[in-house]
């Protein structure tokens, strides 16, 4: 399962102070390897940081060791002995670097101006996954073909289906929304999930925003999909649902249970 994380309003980076080793670039590979063992960045939840950054003068590298409050001066000093003794190279400095991963491309650009960041679309298993509920979602997903979509009410377990029609805008999701009965005390499709095999197109993706869906589950990415291509979930809209992509292997595993 992979979650397409929504737009994060803050493009103001939260930085943390780190100890940095400046060394001769020639010593780079060796030192990076050693640091990977001794000071793994994962251990400080800083694995979004790249270890090395070019120093302003070309033949030197800056290597991030770890958070200043966790790395003792002695530990940092020890690294220096690996250098060739050139005083200008072999020094420890401190710098503010991004404390958290960049979740959006915009953040990436800003974070990168402090320290090089490796950008992976974050993949997390959200705590919202309830086993029983997931079983039901898999079941509905399995029952769908590529030309259908389902609106699921997780409280009542009611399902409303939509099908692709002959007219150009009759996409399965639009049809499902058109078929969905809205009761008086309900705001559109609030609290409902949309389940579809194929990633929604941009029209349908935005129709789901207008309809105030709670979540969207899909399996297959689409070439010009609302999230994988248009990155709708990262846009500063006044509302966004959660987008979850079920990977095929997870789906199969679940079926075997």
């Amino acid at each position, binding site marked *: 399962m992979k979650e397409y994380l929504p737009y994060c309003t803050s493009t103001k980076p939260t930085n943390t102070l780190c100890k940095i080793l400046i060394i001769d670039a020639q010593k780079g590979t060796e030192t990076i390897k050693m640091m990977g063992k001794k000071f793994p960045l994962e251990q400080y939840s800083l694995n979004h940081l790249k270890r090395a950054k070019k120093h302003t003068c070309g033949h030197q590298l800056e290597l991030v060791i770890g958070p200043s409050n966790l790395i003792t001066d002695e530990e940092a000093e020890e690294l220096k002995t690996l250098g060739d003794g050139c005083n200008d190279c072999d020094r420890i400095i401190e710098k503010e670097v991004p404390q958290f991963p960049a979740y959006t491309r915009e953040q990436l650009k800003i974070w990168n101006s402090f320290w090089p960041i490796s950008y992976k679309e974050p993949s997390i298993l959200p705590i919202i996954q309830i086993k029983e509920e997931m079983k039901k979602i898999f079941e509905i997903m399995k029952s769908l073909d590529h030309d259908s979509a389902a609106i699921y009410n997780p409280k009542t377990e009611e399902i409303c289906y939509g099908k692709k029609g002959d007219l150009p805008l009759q996409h399965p999701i639009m049809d499902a929304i058109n078929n969905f009965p809205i009761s008086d005390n309900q705001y559109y499709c609030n609290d409902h999930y949309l389940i579809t095999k194929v990633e929604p197109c*941009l029209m349908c993706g935005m129709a789901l925003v207008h309809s105030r869906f709670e979540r969207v589950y899909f399996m297959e990415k689409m070439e010009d999909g609302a999230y994988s291509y248009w990155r709708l979930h990262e*846009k500063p809209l006044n509302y966004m649902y959660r987008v979850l992509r079920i990977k095929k292997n997870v789906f199969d595993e679940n079926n075997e249970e």
Partner: protein
Amino acid sequence: MEAFMRRALELARHSSSQGEIPVACVFVHNGQALAEAWNMTNETKNATKHCEIVAIDEILKTHPPSILQECELYVTCEPCIMCASALEIIGIKKVYFGCYNERFGGNGSILSVHEGKYESVGGFFAEEAIKIFKDFYERGNPNAPPEKRHRPVAE
């Protein structure tokens, strides 16, 4: 051209009087109005029934989809991302819109869905379109969710 936009604004005012978010449009084919529509999200209880979608549905009741490729659209507010994509799907020829839609706009504000697909020009009678919005929200949109009431949102 001016006449179609004036007509759309008139419809938007009507939409407002019906308690609908005041956005309206005219589809023009060969210099003649082919369909008119206003936002109907409240009446239909369907958040996707924006005026562009309502008009397209109406046209397709009596015409083949190919006619839409020969149409120009006059709409009082920049099409939202959903409608901008719908217009791309149907292959609209050209879009003229009034004010920009900074929250949801798909013809330049949030996304540029039209780029490389269809021509879209904005800013026609924008002040008038904005005034219709203002008047509507000053009265309070009775159908907005409680937390959204009295907030000047477009579409």
